């Protein structure tokens, strides 16, 4: 590995934000995730990258506490995860907002749990502030169904922002968006991540998106889901889209693709090996 791919630790303290230890998860006896060990430093931006069905969404749900692992444990800021917590905000691919509430009401509902000490008036003001930060100042009283997919995702990000969670989990939040909105929202995410600095775990199947956003890319292979490689992204910040044209970026993309190809090849060989063994017996 060349020196170019080594970067400084994400935070000077290097404290652990999320720690996944020897995690296994099965769904109806079919293994979905095996032997997952993953450390995310406090304030680090990590992308989980992998093809559909590799269990990256499952891993994110486990970190969120929406599902519980069969074996192994997940720690967030030192304590084991027992269920969902306001400490970890989540943005889903879509459907993060309740369609019967306006954008502001959606955020106010979130605030009623995360900031119970404040009154309604304060919550409404704060909801408007959060919406303004993601460029939705004008749409506070709109219902989600009247908004575009991009605006709905901005709303979902605003809600996560309002919760003030130190950890932000995002499950392919821009998977359904067109390239232009996608690019805009990637920058919104980077901005939200930076101040105040949060730990982010971001699930995507888009290599360029992962490299543009992350400090570190964790590659997951499928059947069953497992970590095949971790790559520290060597690019400094702030990043611009000029990055996509650089030779280094191209090389890194190529390297990631190569890892996935190799993994698929190994899987196929392993499977046919088993078949051959069965035929002999």
């Amino acid at each position, binding site marked *: 590995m060349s020196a170019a791919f080594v970067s400084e630790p994400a935070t000077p303290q290097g404290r652990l934000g999320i720690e996944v230890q020897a995690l296994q998860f099965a769904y109806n006896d079919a293994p979905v995730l095996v032997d997952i060990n993953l450390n995310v430093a406090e304030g680090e931006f990590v992308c989980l990258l992998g093809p559909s069905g590799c269990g990256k969404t499952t891993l994110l749900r486990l970190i969120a506490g929406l599902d519980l692992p069969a074996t192994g444990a997940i720690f967030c800021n030192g304590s084991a995860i027992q269920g969902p917590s306001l400490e970890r905000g989540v943005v889903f691919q879509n459907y993060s907002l309740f369609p019967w509430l306006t954008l502001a009401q959606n955020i106010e509902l979130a605030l009623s*749990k995360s900031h119970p000490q404040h009154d309604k008036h304060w919550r409404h003001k704060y909801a408007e502030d959060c919406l303004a930060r993601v460029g939705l100042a004008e749409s506070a009283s709109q219902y989600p*169904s009247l908004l575009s997919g991009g605006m709905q995702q901005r709303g979902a990000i605003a809600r996560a922002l309002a919760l003030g969670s130190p950890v932000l989990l995002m499950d392919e939040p821009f998977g359904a968006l067109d390239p232009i909105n996608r690019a805009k929202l990637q920058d919104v995410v980077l901005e939200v991540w930076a101040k105040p600095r949060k730990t982010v775990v971001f699930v995507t199947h888009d290599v360029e998106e992962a490299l543009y956003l992350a400090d570190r890319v964790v590659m997951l292979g499928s059947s069953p889901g497992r970590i095949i490689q971790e790559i520290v992204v060597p690019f400094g910040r702030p990043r611009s889209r000029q990055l996509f044209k650089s030779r280094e970026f191209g090389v890194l993309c190529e390297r990631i693709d190569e890892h996935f190809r190799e993994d698929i090849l190994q899987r196929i060989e392993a499977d046919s090996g088993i078949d051959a063994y069965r035929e002999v017996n």
Partner: protein
Amino acid sequence: MAAFGSETNLAVSSTLSAAAQLPTTNRTRPRSPDFPLPKALRIQGKEGILFIAGIILLWQFVSTAIHFSGKYLFPSPVLTARTLWASLPELLLGTGYSFLILLPSLVFAILLGVAWGLVVGTTPALNRMFSPFARFASPVPPTIYIPYAIALLPTFRTAAGFVVFIGVFWPVFLNTANGAGALPQHYRDNARILGLEKTEYLRRVVFPATLPYIFSGISVGLVFAFIMLTVAELFGASNGLGRFVQLYADYADYPRMVAGILYTGVVVWISMEVLERIKKRALFWLK
């Protein structure tokens, strides 16, 4: 976290829940017809009125044709309309009496059916406890309770109120419980992420998400309410819409009786229209 329970389906095979289907869309998109009407009949949006006009014409024709057997057994539309107009004060008063029984029972049955349906639909243990009973009790045709209710309860009002309640409660409860049990996973996930407590979860998430099912239940329940009430009134009321029809049948005053039937139809139709308006307003967020 087991706090919200898991999706459970109250599998009650009954005609009451068969009507419980999510309204697929609120938009009415003009669609080119598969079988266009002949050009002479093609008046945009007037097909329904034309059909009713046809029925009235047929009615007029038949009543004229069988005139000899006594116009009072099969009154013509004109005679019925005249009688209806003359009986209107009496009918309006009857509507008032009927609604005095209907509305409190309807409201109470809806409140209880929705509340209990939401709780049972989201709590697997309660669902296991209650659904065998519901499976047994809900398909019993509620009209069958009427004679006993009248015998058992002190006044006609309480008896009629009780049977209306039974008729409304089951469809509302079953639809609500099914809807709450079939709550989309992403709503649950979101509620859990936000850390909502059970009561808040029921009030702010499950209830609005289940509203399409609840309205299906209320639509069925409202029809049942009118059936129950008018049938009960046939048995033993001293006033009300069903009583009006029964009274003039006893006196063989068939023009009045037919007028009463028509008038009752209009009242039910208007009630359904009002419900439809409320539903459209409440479900504005459905795409």
